[in-house]
Each structure stands twice: as C-alpha cells, then as structure tokens.
C-alpha cells in the first residue's frame, strides 16, 4: 500500500499541492506501554519533482506530526503533468509516488 497520498491541482500558472504521508514519525522521546523508549523513526527528506526539476524539498525532524501533512504551491506546471514525491527516513526506508496534476 502506497504511503503517499498526493493531490495537485493547477489553476492558471499555479499548482497547489497537498500531500499526506503515512509514517509513525517517532520522536525518540516517547515510551511504549512497557516503558521502553521508542527509538526515533522519522522522515528526513521529502522531495517533489516536476519535469526532472526539484520544486520543493521538505527537511523534517521528529517534531513533525505523525502521518505528516504538507501544503505548498509552485508555478510552471500544466494540467496533465506528472509530479513525483519521494521520501526517505532516518532508517533508510523510502517510498515514492506520482500524481497527475489536475
């Protein structure tokens, strides 16, 4: 099951992007039910690319909420273009998804 849900909609020259990523974003400060510290496990970077160019990069620490949400916008894309999002976390896990700009 893909971890990234992304919506990208163009209006004129501006494309509005909303992304929701499924990820625990464990901070490393929280203990589990048996009192053991849950080690940090969080996304470090989330990169958005359009036409091979990086339009937006999120650098995240463990203070970003669980199942992170991100909203941004950029110019220069057209309806039908592909927008790719890729994240990588502190354990080296990664996922990528592509959305068609509506």
């Amino acid at each position, binding site marked *: 099951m893909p971890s990234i849900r992304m919506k990208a909609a163009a209006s004129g020259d*501006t494309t509005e992007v909303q992304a929701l990523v499924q990820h625990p*974003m464990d*901070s490393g*400060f*929280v*203990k*589990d*039910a*048996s009192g*053991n510290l*849950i*080690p*940090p*496990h969080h996304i*470090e*970077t989330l990169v958005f690319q359009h036409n091979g*160019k*990086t*339009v*937006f*990069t*999120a*650098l*995240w*620490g*463990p*203070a*970003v*909420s*669980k199942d*992170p*949400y*991100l*909203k*941004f*916008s*950029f*110019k*220069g*894309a057209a309806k039908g273009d592909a927008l790719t999002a890729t994240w*990588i*976390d*502190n*354990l*080296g896990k990664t996922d990528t998804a592509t959305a068609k700009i509506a």
Partner: protein
Amino acid sequence: MSFESTASLEATRRTALRLLAGLGLYGISMPAFADAVPGWPADAFKAKTADEALVALYGKKFEMSDKVSIDGPDIAENGGVVPISVDTKLPNVTSISILVAENPNALASSYKLGEGANPAVGCRLKMAKTTKVIAVVESDGKLYAASRDVKVTLGGCGG
C-alpha cells in the same frame, strides 16, 4: 475468550515492536544510517535551542520582519498535531524554516524552495508545551523572522 486472544495478539505486537526497536537502535549505531540522507542538516536538527539551530542551519543572524506571517492556533488542545503555516511577501525566497522554541530540539522543519515555488508552506507539528513558534524566511540571502505564541493544553512529545 476474545479478551485472551486480544491479549496474546498484544504480546505478539510488543515482541515485534521490541524486535523493531532493536533493529532501529542497531541502525542508529551505524553512521551511514544516522545521517541517511545527504543534505539533511543533522547538526541543526540536534541543536537544543532555536538560536543554536539557526546558527547550524544558516550561520547568520536574522531580523524580525512584518513581511513574514505565521499562522496557527492560539490554543492547541492536542500538542501532537498543531497546524502551522508560513507565508511571506518577500522576494527571491530560497528557504523557510519553522522552529518550536520549547521542544527538546527546536528545529521542527525546514523547506527548500526550488525554482517556481511560491514562498508559503503549511504543515503540522508536535509541540511539547506552550511555546513560541518561530518562522524564518531566507530572502535574497538574508534571514527574516516572525513568531507567534501557541498555548498547548496537552503536550505532544509524550513527555
């Protein structure tokens, strides 16, 4: 009966979590994993205070500016999920960073804007307690900041 099976499932889940936790710690002891992503500013994210984080991230001073606006709730009932958005009218913005002053590590997130990106971002952050939230915008190579206070009723860092 159903309670027992739930309990044993719970035990299995805990064992699995412990195993995962072990793997996680193993990973962290390896430098290749600790700073897995090139370009992720580990020093800035590990800094305790907002000032230290900004020095590690940008290495320069900032000035407060009314051209940076930061939006969020005045009172957050759940510190685990606090919506924050930053917006600016400043030109040639290359990055936006958001810091939560009272968190164990102040830097929460930093955004690099590529060509064509509009200078605005929205996200959701965890806040340990009532805190000042600081937005820093890099425009024409200079840093401009704004801050707002968020009263947190229930902390979001499990402390």
